[in-house]
């Protein structure tokens, strides 16, 4: 076997740590073409690579002038996200998936459903403790499938967004940016 390309460390959980499950209610999404520079995690073979920075984006994406993330509201306790392995040992990858529910019956949401049918973008999902994860990458943009359902008279009317992307949902520490980029 060759030398490991990255050092492993202890994986512990501090007594009393806060660990809420589920998602927050405000998320973001962006067209890939609106991002001038998409920042990425380090690759395991890069100088300075560590377990912390090979699956985390620590620098803010730079948007084209006048562009930024758009807001995406999801009803509380009706969304979730995560990733799971795909492929075989020695060739394993990941697929990320998230679900959001957006209430109502809206022309804008119907239009977005059409756009999402052929879309290249990234989705930024905020978890209950405000950690933001990015779903999608330039190589594998997020895929968003939208279904609309009126529900019954004691149910929920709205849109269900199923977001998937090959690759992990990596942590994006710069958070959500809803301010159009300025001229440098």
């Amino acid at each position: 076997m060759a030398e490991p390309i990255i050092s492993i460390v202890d994986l512990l959980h501090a007594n009393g740590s806060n660990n809420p499950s589920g998602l927050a209610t405000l998320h973001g999404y962006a067209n890939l073409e609106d991002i001038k520079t998409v920042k990425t995690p380090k690759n395991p073979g890069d100088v300075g690579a560590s377990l912390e920075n090979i699956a985390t984006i620590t620098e803010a994406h730079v948007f084209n002038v006048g562009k930024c993330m758009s807001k995406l509201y999801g009803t509380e306790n009706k969304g979730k996200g995560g990733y799971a392995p795909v492929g075989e040992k020695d060739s394993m990858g990941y697929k990320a998936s998230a679900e959001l529910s957006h209430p109502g019956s809206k022309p804008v949401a119907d239009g977005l459903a059409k756009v999402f049918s052929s879309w290249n973008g990234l989705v930024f999902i905020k978890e209950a403790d405000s950690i933001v994860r990015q779903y999608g990458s330039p190589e594998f943009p997020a895929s968003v499938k939208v279904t609309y359902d009126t529900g019954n008279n004691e149910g929920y009317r709205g849109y269900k967004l199923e977001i998937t992307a090959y690759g992990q949902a990596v942590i994006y520490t710069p958070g959500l940016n809803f301010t159009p980029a300025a001229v440098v």
Partner: protein
Amino acid sequence: MAAPKLPADVAGKYKMLAGHGVGEYHWSGHRVDLQTITLDQATSLVKQGFPYLIAKKQPRTLI
């Protein structure tokens, strides 16, 4: 319309990360409005690692 600016006292100490505008950011549990942020709030956020404000180099005072 002119682009929004940081409050004057904040702008005296901090500048925006290149390519980013003055406005709304959601970072690490904080909802930040950079148009109305106070200097104390800005300093506290920067100390915690808020990435969109960069401390300016302060000119040396000659004694």
